[in-house]
C-alpha cells in the first residue's frame, strides 16, 4: 500500500496532463458533430478521403460511412483519441518499473524490507488505477459532450450504451498496451527511451495488424494489434466481441506473469 500511494503521488501530475489533453480533444472532436450534419461539410470530408490512398484509408479506419449518426461519429473520432490513450497506456507500463531504476531511487526502495513482488504489485496497482481514472474522465467528458450535441431523435440511454461499448473496448485495448509495456519495462534500464518505445510499440503493432486489411492476405496478423480487437467503428456496430475480450485478458495475464517472473530474477545495476 505504501508503494502504491507513493506511485500515485508521483504520477499525479502526469495523470492530470494526459487526462486534461485527452479530455479536451474528446470534447472538441465531439462538438464537431453538428457540423457533420451539414451536407457541404460531409461532401468536403468525402472528397478529402477519396484523395487519400485507399490503403491509408483502410489502415487508419478513415471511412466516413454513416457518420451523420452520433454513435458512429463518436466511434470515428474516438479512434484517434484511443491511439493517444493506448500510447499513454504503453508509456505508463514502460516507465512503471524502469523509472525507479533509471533515477537510481530503486536503491532506496529495494534497501527497505519489501519483496520484489510487492514492488511490482504496488506499481502495477498504481498505474492500473491511474489509467482507470484517465479513462473514467475521458468517458465522462465523452458522454457529457455527446449530451451537448445529441439530436432529439436519439435516445439518451441508446447513446450512452453505444458510447459505453466504444469506451469500454478502448479501455481494454489500452490496458493491454499498458501490460505489454509493463513486461517490456523489466528489460529496460533507462526510462528516457520509454516515450519513443511506447510510440514504437503502438505503431509497430498497429501497422503490422493493419496488413491484412490493406493487402487482403496474412489474416492472422490482425491479432498483432490489441486495438484491432476493439476497433471503435466495429464495436459501435456489433458490440464487444467476447472472444476478443478473452484474448486481451490472456495477453494481459501473460504479460503480468512474465513481469513478475523476470523482475524476481533481475539484477539492479544502480
Amino acid at each position, binding site marked *: 500500500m*505504501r508503494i502504491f500511494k507513493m506511485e500515485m503521488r*508521483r504520477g499525479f501530475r502526469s495523470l492530470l496532463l494526459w487526462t486534461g489533453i485527452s479530455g479536451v480533444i474528446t470534447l472538441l472532436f465531439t462538438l464537431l458533430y453538428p457540423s457533420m450534419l451539414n451536407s457541404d461539410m460531409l461532401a468536403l470530408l468525402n472528397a478529402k478521403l477519396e484523395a487519400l490512398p485507399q490503403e491509408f484509408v483502410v489502415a487508419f479506419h478513415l471511412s466516413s460511412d454513416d457518420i451523420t449518426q452520433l454513435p458512429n461519429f463518436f466511434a470515428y473520432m474516438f479512434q484517434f483519441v484511443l491511439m493517444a490513450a493506448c500510447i499513454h497506456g504503453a508509456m505508463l507500463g514502460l516507465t512503471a518499473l524502469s523509472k525507479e531504476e533509471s*533515477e537510481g*531511487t530503486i*536503491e*532506496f526502495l529495494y534497501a527497505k*524490507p519489501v519483496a520484489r513482488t510487492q514492488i511490482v504489485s504496488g506499481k502495477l496497482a498504481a498505474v492500473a488505477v491511474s489509467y482507470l481514472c484517465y479513462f473514467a474522465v475521458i468517458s465522462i467528458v465523452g458522454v457529457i459532450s455527446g449530451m451537448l450535441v445529441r439530436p432529439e431523435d436519439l435516445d439518451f440511454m441508446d447513446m450512452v450504451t453505444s458510447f459505453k461499448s466504444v469506451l469500454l473496448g478502448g479501455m481494454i485495448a489500452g490496458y493491454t498496451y499498458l501490460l505489454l509495456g509493463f513486461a517490456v519495462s523489466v528489460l529496460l534500464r533507462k526510462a528516457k527511451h520509454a516515450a519513443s518505445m511506447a510510440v514504437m510499440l503502438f505503431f509497430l503493432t498497429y501497422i503490422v495488424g493493419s496488413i491484412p486489411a490493406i493487402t487482403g492476405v496474412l489474416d492472422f496478423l490482425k491479432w498483432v494489434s490489441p486495438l484491432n480487437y476493439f476497433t471503435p467503428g466495429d464495436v459501435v456496430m456489433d458490440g464487444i466481441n467476447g472472444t476478443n475480450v478473452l484474448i486481451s485478458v490472456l495477453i494481459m495475464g501473460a504479460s503480468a506473469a512474465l513481469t513478475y517472473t523476470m523482475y524476481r530474477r533481475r*539484477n539492479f545495476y544502480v
Partner: protein
Amino acid sequence: MAAVIQTQGLTKSYGKHRGIVDTNMTVNEGEIYGFIGPNGAGKSTMIKTLLNFLFPTSGSATVLGLDCVNESRRIKAQTAYVPSDIHYYEELTVGDLLSYSDGFYPEAEKEYTQQLVQRFELDTKKKIGQLSTGNKKKAALVAALSCRPKLMILDEPTNGLDPLMRQKLFEALLEQREAGCTIFLSSHNLDEVQSLCSRVAIIREGRIVDIKEIGVLSAERAKKVTVIGESIPDSFENEAIKIVSKTKGRIAFTYHSTDMGALLQLLSGMNAQDFLVEDLKLSDIFLAYYK
C-alpha cells in the same frame, strides 16, 4: 561471537567482467568492520550482492544468519543501508522521505527520528532535489539510523559531510555499536577506517587480499620516519626497517620495533637536516594495495 555477515566463495561476475571473485569474509556481531580497496575493486558489488540487488554467480552469503538471496526481505527488516551516491525522490521533502522510510519499519518512532533530525541539523521542509550532496547524505544517515537496525551497511558514509557532521556521524556510529549494532563500513578514507574499525578487509581486483586487525597494528607501534638531508645513507634496511620511498635528499622508512634508543642512534648518525617520526597509519600500510 555470532557472525553477522558471512560469505563463502561469494562470486559475482558481469558476463566477461569481474565483480567479486571467491570472497570469504566474516563480520562478527557488534564490530565495526572496514572494507577498503581502490575504485572498481568490487566494494559496491559486494554490498549490492549482500543486499540482493545483484544475484551471486556462485558461492553464498548469510546476513544476520539469513540467506542473502532467499531471505533478503527479513535481512532488510533489520539492516540499514547508506549508499555512496544518494539518489532519492527529488520531489519529496526531507520530512516526507523520512516518513516514507520509517513506514517500512514497525519499530521506527517519530520522536526518535525527530531527535536525529535535530542532531544532524536537517531542514525537513526542504525538497530532496534542493539539498546539497552533504545534506542528502545526512538525510540518508537519519533514515538509516531511525529504524534502529541490527546491522548498518555504509558505503562512503562521510562523502560530502563537513568535519563537524563527520564527527557527529562517528559519535552516532560508536553509540550504535555500544547498543549492539554491527557496522560494515566501506570507505576510501583509511584514517577514518583506522579510527573506527576493529578489523578491515582489503579488496583488490575483486578478491579479498588481506584482513587485518586494527588493534594488532596499533600494538606493533610501528613508526614512519622521514629524513631530509644532503648525504643520507640508503642502505640501512634490516628486519625492523623497511624503506618506503627514496628521492634525492629525502628518504622515508617504516620502523617496526619498540627500541626507540636504536632509532635515535640511527637518526643521529645520518647527518640529517630534518626528520619526522610519526605513528604508522593504516594508509601507509595499505597504500600498496591501491597501487
